[in-house]
């Protein structure tokens, strides 16, 4: 696999898997309005994943975007582990989304300066969407954190539980360094400072405590995942794998 291909897949997979997770809320949202809001965000992420997979398919030359989404196995997926975490209760979903959106808002802003024109264009289009997602998720963090005693307890628990999945955002491996050198990719470590600012500001408004940076989960850059990804794929890929020639 070419370097560029893998780099695109990493970005695409996080959007695709998180989109699938959010789509599980469809018809189960706490209110009708929130149901639609979450489904909208899920669709935005799916659109982004689609653009990236189409581009990856072009770079690859052999596989279609659908092949890439539906015919890869677990170890060939490179999404951040945070994206595959279960929806849990509404507060869990909001925290997962807030931590990811804060990162994505910075990542795609930087990616829009990429020398790769397609990546830059996709990033530019994504920024507006992500800013809205971040507004939605951070407002909920504040609302629940600064809400009732119960909502505060629950969302603080969610934050403590999910925090260890945020380390992956800022990792650099050989491929990242290579892409950075070619000015296609970016320095993930550089995003940390600004991410801290977004997180701290919101948590302060929400009257929540920032968990300590302790043990952090890692592995997704090598295709190592939690046991949850397999379950997602078995559902997401079932139809195209069972009926390979089906058209829709």
């Amino acid at each position, binding site marked *: 696999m070419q370097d560029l291909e893998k780099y695109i897949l990493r970005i695409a997979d996080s959007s695709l898997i998180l989109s699938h997770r959010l789509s599980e809320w469809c018809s189960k949202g*706490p209110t009708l309005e929130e149901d639609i809001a979450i489904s909208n965000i899920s669709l935005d992420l799916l659109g982004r994943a689609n653009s990236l997979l189409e581009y990856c398919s072009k770079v690859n030359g052999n596989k279609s975007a659908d092949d890439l989404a539906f015919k890869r196995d677990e170890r060939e997926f490179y999404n951040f582990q945070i994206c595959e975490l279960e929806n849990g209760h509404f507060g869990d979903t909001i925290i997962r989304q807030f931590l990811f959106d804060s990162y994505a808002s910075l990542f795609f802003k930087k990616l829009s300066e990429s020398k790769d024109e397609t990546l830059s264009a996709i990033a530019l289009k994504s920024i507006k969407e992500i800013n809205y997602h971040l507004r939605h998720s951070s*407002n909920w963090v504040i609302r629940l954190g600064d809400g009732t005693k119960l909502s505060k307890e629950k969302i603080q628990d969610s934050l403590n539980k999910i925090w260890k999945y945020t380390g992956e955002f800022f990792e650099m491996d050989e491929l990242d360094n290579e892409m950075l050198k070619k000015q296609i990719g970016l320095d993930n470590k550089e995003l940390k400072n600004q991410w801290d600012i977004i997180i701290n500001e919101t948590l302060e408004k929400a009257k929540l405590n920032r968990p300590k940076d302790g043990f952090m989960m890692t592995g997704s850059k090598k295709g190592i995942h939690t046991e949850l990804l397999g379950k997602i794929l078995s559902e997401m890929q079932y139809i195209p794998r069972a009926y390979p020639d089906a058209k829709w």
Partner: protein
Amino acid sequence: MQLELIHKNKLQMNKAATIWEVFIQSKNGLAHKHVGNVHAEDKEMALQNARDLYTRRNEGSCIWVVKSEHIVSSVPEDEESFFDPSNDKVYRHPTFYNLPDGVKHI
């Protein structure tokens, strides 16, 4: 059965939430038009819900949300005394004027 229960829960949750009326301006310069309502706990949530529910297909450039309780409405019983007196005053209608070309939105 379970779906029914979920639906009932949603209704109950929504009962506690405030209702907001949504007005959308489709283009700069035009008046905001009432499009419907949303449930929300606060004004930011009302604005976001309105955005998600009513502007998905490029409908607008500006949204207003107003708590429904802040809208004062006439009631059906008022209809006669409010509106009938103007029915026989044709001179109030601008039907005697020729509109210049280029005047829009009338």
